[in-house]
């Protein structure tokens, strides 16, 4: 039985991380916030499905990701079409964002969604390979190979594109979600 007060504190503590992950898979702050809201409500409703002592962040990320792929993505796709480009450009680097990182954001955006997701989970969110595999519902080896390919590709792109002149509207947050604004496209 999960203690509601402790559970609520834990939810509160994870909001920032949840939101960052949501932004990284939706590429859009507004949709990310809707996704986080759905996730928080689902988590609260199913709190007894959480085993105390296990990694609550991984548990929440799994809910968030499943929510995105099961219903959220379909729903948001319907209203997205025409607005996709505009909304992506509206989401810029934070004022304090490092312009030096633009090349990297651009390169990250060009990764296939599944590779970028795996890389972010392990390389930026601090999950183990095992946890990332669980969150993504795939085999450990799949996560490892996605990350290896992502790193190799980034290494190539950043070697080649360094010094290239990127325009002022280079994607930023959106870059975390890919050039197409999110989704599970693998190409």
């Amino acid at each position, binding site marked *: 039985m999960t203690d509601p007060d402790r559970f*609520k504190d834990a939810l509160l503590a994870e909001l*920032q991380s949840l*939101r960052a992950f949501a932004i990284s898979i939706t590429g859009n702050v507004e949709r990310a916030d809707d996704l986080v809201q759905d996730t928080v*409500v689902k988590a609260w409703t199913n709190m007894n499905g959480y085993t105390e002592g296990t990694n609550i962040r991984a548990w929440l990320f799994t809910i968030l990701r499943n929510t995105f792929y099961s219903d959220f993505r379909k729903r948001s796709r319907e209203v997205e079409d025409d607005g996709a480009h505009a909304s992506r450009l509206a989401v810029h680097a934070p004022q304090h964002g490092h312009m*030096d990182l633009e090349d990297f954001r651009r390169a990250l955006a060009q990764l296939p969604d599944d590779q970028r997701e795996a890389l972010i989970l392990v390389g930026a969110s601090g999950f183990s390979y095992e946890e990332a595999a669980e969150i993504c519902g795939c085999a450990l080896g799949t996560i490892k190979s996605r990350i290896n390919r992502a790193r190799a590709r980034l290494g190539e792109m950043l070697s080649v594109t360094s010094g290239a002149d990127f325009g002022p509207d280079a994607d930023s*947050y959106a870059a*975390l979600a890919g050039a197409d604004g999110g989704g599970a496209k693998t190409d």
Partner: protein
Amino acid sequence: MISPQFPDVTFRLKKAANMDRHKPATVVDARQEARQTDGAQSPAGDDVVQQAIGSQLRAVYDEVVRLPVPDRFLSLLSSLDGRPTLPASGKEQES
């Protein structure tokens, strides 16, 4: 001056120009450094590049993690009690 066969050699960015700023090492820095320390194209050089990629990834992601959480989530959380109801998600959040 880009030579496809030897991409490393074409980068002349000065590491010094980046050293005193608070930012993650770039891949270009990393390659430069690798060349200086143990020659071009070595496996150790790849490690340095991967470290640069790792630090830039964390820097980019941390900028997003540090964004302030909107009040709507704090209200949502404080509205949760023992008998959760399902608020409609979507456009009409209180702001």
